[in-house]
């Protein structure tokens, strides 16, 4: 402990070389070692003094970052002329040069063409200061509105779900729970929370408002009014307070997909997939816990044999594409070395692709799903299969007319393959 502190306090002074370099820059040729030392000590002390004064200005400016302005003000305090017009785009604007046995850092001053500056269009006028009011708390409870931070931050949702025991540890509870976690808690809630910690958080009771919200949202999402649906999806994608309803939403989606695939209700399947998309877009939700329900639903929408009542007319291909994109997105965001989502999904797709008996619809889904995972996947898994698939398509196209559905399927697979197997730059 003491050692660390001593390290920190160790007085640092500028190297004498810098003194020499600076002296040279103002035309003083040979500076003696002693004067360099004296100078560097003095300069270091003065710099520290100014920095300490500048800190005062930072504190009073209610900032966490020290700015050049603060240093100017501190210089002004000491009756030193502030630095006028200094501005640096880079963090450290020094360049290194060596030669003739010397090493130098210098400040690079480029020639600036004034006409360039004059001719560049003026930057946009920054917006004026404005005042906005919102409720931080209503009768002691923080409302879950976009202006407020999410009631339960993502990190906590994560720790709650991944390490449920961590929260119960004694000792951490006192400081930790209230300092970093106890959000929007009134006294009753604070006390309640401490007790709540003791039992596993398996049950989630929704308040009346939340139940109402859940009902409204789900109805709007699968209802007939498109405007309402858009609003509902927007709400799912942006509202910070959905954490507690997440298990319900997830069940709603997986059950919905299960039922509607059997009933071949294409429209509803599309609506449900849009809900998944909205959930994934919400930055405040920790979805990892519910992937086991969501991923099967999405995969179903990609590879199911039949998704609609009239496969020859309805555009279920678009749903497969959309779901495949969702799948790729979740692979990107959620795949880790422990859950291996991407490799498991890839394996599933490849397996059915290799199967000769696979229907054209499923085949299309597999290819679309794989294609969305990126060029590497296309290169290693689809391109080698091109000749086989091509032969199969040809067989359907040129062969005897088996069924119209097969033909349409083959047609779609063909066009899909054509699109994805183009070289990347032509995409």
């Amino acid at each position, binding site marked *: *402990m*003491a*050692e660390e*502190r*001593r390290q920190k*306090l*160790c*007085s640092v002074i500028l190297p004498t070389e810098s003194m020499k370099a600076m002296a040279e820059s103002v035309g003083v040729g040979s500076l003696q070692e002693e004067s360099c030392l004296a100078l560097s*000590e*003095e300069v*270091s*002390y003065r710099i*520290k*003094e100014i920095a*300490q004064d500048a800190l*005062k*200005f930072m*504190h*009073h*400016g*209610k*900032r*966490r970052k020290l700015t050049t*302005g603060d240093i100017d*003000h501190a210089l002004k*305090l000491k009756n030193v002329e502030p630095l006028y017009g200094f501005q640096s785009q880079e963090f450290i604007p020094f360049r290194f040069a060596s030669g003739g046995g010397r090493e130098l850092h210098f400040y690079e001053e480029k020639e600036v063409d004034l006409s360039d500056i004059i001719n560049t269009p003026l930057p946009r006028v*920054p*917006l*004026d*200061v*404005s*005042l*906005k*009011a*919102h*409720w*931080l*708390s*209503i*009768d*002691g409870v*923080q409302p879950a509105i976009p*202006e*407020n*931070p999410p009631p339960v931050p993502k990190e906590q949702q994560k720790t709650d779900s991944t390490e449920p025991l961590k929260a119960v540890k004694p000792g951490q509870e*006192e400081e930790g729970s*209230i*300092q970093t976690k*106890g*959000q*929007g*808690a*009134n*006294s009753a809630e*604070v006390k309640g929370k401490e007790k709540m910690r003791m039992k596993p958080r398996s049950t989630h009771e929704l308040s009346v408002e939340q139940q109402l919200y859940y009902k409204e949202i789900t109805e709007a999402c699968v209802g007939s009014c498109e405007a309402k649906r858009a609003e509902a999806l927007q709400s799912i994608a942006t509202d910070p307070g959905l954490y507690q309803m997440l298990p319900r939403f997830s069940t709603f989606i997986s059950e919905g997909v299960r039922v509607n695939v059997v009933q071949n209700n294409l429209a509803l399947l599309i609506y449900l997939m849009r809900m998944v998309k909205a959930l994934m877009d919400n930055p405040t939700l920790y979805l990892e816990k519910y992937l086991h329900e969501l991923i099967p639903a999405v995969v179903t929408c990609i590879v199911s044999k039949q998704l609609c009542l009239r496969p020859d007319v309805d555009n279920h291909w678009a749903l497969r594409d959309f779901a495949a994109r969702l799948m790729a997105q979740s692979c990107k965001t959620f795949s880790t070395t422990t859950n291996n989502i991407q490799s498991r999904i890839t394996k599933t797709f490849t397996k059915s692709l290799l199967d000769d008996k696979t229907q054209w619809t499923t085949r299309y889904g597999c290819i679309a799903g794989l294609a969305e995972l990126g060029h590497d996947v296309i290169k290693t898994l689809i391109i080698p299969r091109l000749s086989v698939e091509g032969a199969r398509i040809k067989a359907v196209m040129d062969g005897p007319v088996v069924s119209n559905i097969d033909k349409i399927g083959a047609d779609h697979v063909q066009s899909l393959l054509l699109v994805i197997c183009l070289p990347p730059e032509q995409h």
Partner: protein
Amino acid sequence: MAAVQDGPMELDAEKEAKPEILSDGTSNLSGNTASGTLSSSPLTAAPAGGAPKMEDQQTLIAVLQFLKRNKLSESVEILRREAGLGEHQEGSQATDGSGGGKGDGDGGDANSLLSRVSITSAAAPQSMPVKKDQPDVSVVLSAYSQQGDPPLYQVYYSGLKNFIESVLDCHRAELSQLFYPLFVHMYLELVYNNHETEAKAFFDKFSGDQECYYQDDLHILCGLTKKEHLKGNEVLLDFRTSRFVLHISRDSYQLLKRHLQERHNNQIWNIIQEHLYIDIFDGMPRSKSQIDSMSGSLAGEAKREVNKAKVFYGLLKEPEIEVPLDDEDDEAENEEGKPKKKKTKKDSLGSKSKKQDPNAPQQNRIPLPELKDSDKLDKIMYMKESTKRIRLGPENLPSICFYTFLNAFQGLTAVDFTDDSSLLAGGFADSTVRVWSVTPKKLRKVKSAGELNVIEKESDDVLERIMDEKTASESKILHGHSGPVYGVSFSPDRNYLLSSSEDGTVRLWSLQTFTCLVGYKGHNYPVWDTHFSPFGYYFVSGGHDRVARLWATDHYQPLRIFAGHLADVTCTRFHPNSNYVATGSTDRTVRLWDVLNANCVRILTGHKGPIHSLAFSPNGKFLASGSTDGRVLLWDIGHGLMIGELKGHTDTIYALKFSRDGEILASGSMDNTVRLWDSMKAFDEVETDDFTATTGHIHLPDNSQELLLGMYHSKSTPVTHLHFTRRNLLLAAGAYNSQ
């Protein structure tokens, strides 16, 4: 106790002396100024007063000797006359001093004074050539020129360290207080005498042992490696001019004294005698936690005698209200007579209790401005509003409305609300002040003089007619400062706005014309904060020049200068009865000043970082202060005691406010949270404990978590200001920080 017995008497004498000066001043001025003003003649009353403090006297004597030695007999005469110092007094001190009162005494004041004088007399010739323009500085510095063997310093210090670590637990905590001041003084002595390498070794060896709350000062210290640095460094100059104050029980002190005498450890003994002030008390030694809670300030704890002066913390009665309220009643009887009656009763009840308040100052102790008709109307509005006030409590938390400043790229530095919560002012780092109306009523300017001429002055709606509709807007910008605006404050009548800035001025703005009326110059350095008196007319400002100044709006020079802080005055607040001013400082103390005579009546130590926010409880009894270390401390003003510590914030607390009835304390911080604390509970728990009141040794319960009623995070918006509306709705303000 023995050491401070003459304390109260001395203060009494001062009290008697001061009003005389004051009345002299008023009689001189009565011809040309309004009678209801504080006299502006006795500026800093303290040094000119009849009985200068001990340290002042020492310095004076030292200066006198210096002058004498330089044959400046005339100056000697003048100085002596002005200081009211008898020749015999100084002469006897000097002769006695040279006779050699070495520091073997009982720790009494006289003894240490003598040794001090002898040292200065020995050292003065040496210091003469070093600095001629600032004799007092060199005299102070020269106290260091008396030197021991530099390499032995480490031995001395570690010897004492070993001794203190070996004593009984109960004494160890108390004696450990010695470490820091001794360390600093020994280090400075080494530096002063040009023993650079020894100083560095000494620092490296022992700086790690110091309490963590002295880190900031140690950072400054470690930069100081040369004698030349000492001269310019204000912080350390203070460390030497003002003695570091320690409270130590008699037993522990005896123990220490015996040890030092046995070991003939004169070096340390000398430092204790010269630079430390040990306040000895009888009774149980204090525990480590007790000491820790009180220490941390730049110059140690407050001497107990400093906080013995009586403070009239009660509220002034408000007799003027009842008359207009009755009038109003008659007028509005047909509307809603009944509830009004009730209110009046309630009110007279309230003011009756105030009348009986034995702690209230005399009504005219500080001349207050007379109430205007508009003020009375406002008071009536206040009464009406307060009947609709929500009773807050742990079960009934306030709603919080957060005003976020968006696009404040230039940096929001200060915010204030008017008392009726209708206007909001923001000070910005780009030197502008902006005023917003937060009600639908827009801000309008008064018409120009030419247009005003044609208005019929007798008409009923003349007040409405003088306003220029064309200028109506939601916000107005006030240009005038030439540096960041660090403090803004509305006058209670909403006609004026004060702003204080880096450019060293305080400006008074009219909210009728939205122009600057006066620029008050005096600070010369950045002015960190300003605050209007709750009755208007007076205001206080504090800045980098380490003094707070009391001004009246119609005087361009300050009426009082509150000098005593050892570093920047960072925040200033008026007591609700306008008789006192509280200031917080970078020296980590809070001071309470008497407006009447500019005396410091309370020094409150215990903060471990610069203080950035202060709030008085509405009943005037308590004070809350918040600092950069994220802690709020609660103080009982009457007893001058710390009564609570609220831990939880993780960054600087910039805003503190009590609810209108004082049940809840709200704190807002740089860590983007607003926290609500149960102040009633905090105060209650202490009031039952009378042991602390008599001894002054507090034992703080660690109950921050119980007192915390709620915590509300904002989205990356530091909380700059908090305000309770008259109905107890909490308003918060801050600038959204997009990074």
